[in-house]
């Protein structure tokens, strides 16, 4: 299917109506998104929500069941687009019998634009000796080698599946620093899947939240943030008193706004909303929630209405699956 987004080279990734089915199960459904080049995108979601499937499809390793996906305006995966993409899978496949130096040589032979200096610098930053055999490295060290390979490839798009999961805090911050330095220098687009949002706090400027194979939040991080408000007020008499009721009776003035989550604690009611057009009346304290608060609100409430700011047909209200 020819996408109208083909020929959109300003976008690193464009997906339209993308879906993937394994036998009877949909891993990903009706995903429409657009990632401008040069962004650092966080792909968040519980295990099994479709993050890895999306990354593997973007890497050209899985064919979509429905819809289309294009990279840098190219609708089909060609050797030219594959050269622009580096993918670090969750299981970081490396040859255990090779040394680190041999692994880098392998990368150099496979990749025409290979940058040995970058790969070596990354490994030096995280104290991995190039003489060590892969089989002797810890999981976290292997991840660093896989990342060094990806960076050495000098790709325009890095697809990283849970790259920081097995890293200690020091190595995580050094790896992330090295990754961001590369992005700063070359304008690399980086897509990082994780279920630990804190890893990407302050790092990502674009966000995709997946749940049960569907996109629930998509867009520029600041735009998502400013679309939400966290309002706190006192619960009124007559509202059912419960200690931690997870969607307690809501006051009528909140009804005009899209409620993501409402939580009552004692006399206090805290509501995460996407404000509608009208001003909120009454004694409410409103503040902008952190990205983490927003994500937790959606994760705790799988039925919260999705907010898709990347553009495209799924912006329309979703029909039931």
């Amino acid at each position, binding site marked *: 299917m020819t996408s109208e987004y083909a020929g959109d080279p300003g976008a690193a990734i464009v997906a339209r109506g993308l879906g993937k089915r394994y036998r009877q199960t949909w891993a990903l459904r009706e995903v429409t998104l657009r990632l401008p080049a040069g962004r650092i995108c966080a792909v968040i979601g519980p295990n099994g929500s479709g993050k890895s499937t999306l990354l593997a499809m973007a890497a050209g390793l899985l064919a979509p069941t429905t819809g289309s996906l294009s990279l840098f305006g190219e609708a089909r995966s060609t050797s030219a687009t594959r050269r622009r993409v580096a993918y670090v899978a969750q299981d970081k496949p490396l040859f255990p019998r090779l040394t680190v130096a041999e692994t880098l040589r392998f990368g150099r032979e496979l990749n025409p634009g290979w940058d040995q200096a970058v790969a070596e610098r990354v490994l030096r930053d995280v104290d991995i000796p190039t003489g060590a055999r892969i089989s002797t490295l810890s999981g976290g060290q292997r991840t660093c080698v896989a990342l060094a390979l990806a960076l050495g490839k000098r790709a325009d798009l890095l697809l990283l599946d849970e790259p920081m999961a097995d890293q200690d805090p020091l190595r995580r911050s050094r790896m992330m*620093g090295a*990754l*961001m330095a590369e*992005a*700063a220098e070359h304008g690399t687009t980086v897509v990082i899947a994780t279920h630990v949002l804190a890893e990407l706090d*302050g790092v990502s*400027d674009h966000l995709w939240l997946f749940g049960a194979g569907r996109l629930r939040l998509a867009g520029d991080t*600041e735009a998502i943030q*400013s679309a939400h408000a966290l309002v706190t007020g006192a619960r009124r008499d007559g509202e059912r008193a419960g200690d931690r009721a997870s969607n307690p009776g809501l006051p009528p003035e909140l009804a005009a706004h899209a409620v993501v989550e409402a939580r009552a604690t004692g006399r206090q009611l805290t509501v995460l909303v996407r404000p509608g057009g009208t001003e909120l009346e009454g004694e409410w304290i409103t503040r902008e929630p*952190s990205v983490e608060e927003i994500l937790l609100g959606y994760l705790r409430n799988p039925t919260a209405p999705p907010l898709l700011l990347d553009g495209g047909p799924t912006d329309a209200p979703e029909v039931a699956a």
Partner: protein
Amino acid sequence: MRVIEYRIDRRAGVATYLQIVQQTKQALRLGLLQPGDRLPTAKEVVAATAINPNTVLKAYRELEREGLVEPRPGLGTFVRRSLARPESAAGSPLRAELAAWMDRAREAGLDREDVAALFASVLDERLGDAPPTPN
């Protein structure tokens, strides 16, 4: 020579780019950064702090918009003017008046937080709210 090092507090509740803007201005007020100094490159900042490079660029654009720094293509971003104000230096009359006011506030029984809240409230009332976060 690196003249400023940014400390990013991810729990501060202040947007990361604003932290860079504020720390730069603070350094300009204190005279730690002076006209002609080069700010660290985006690459240097993100390598040290592991934040998004666009955040650094956004902070520098904001500082440029305020006329505090200027980019010189191929060379970096340089400080244009200082924010050090003789009116607020130690020994200035304004500072002495504020110090005297704070002494009276303490005598009146206000503690540190009371004073900070009162100060912030009058600050907002007289000099306007803190600049809104531009998008």
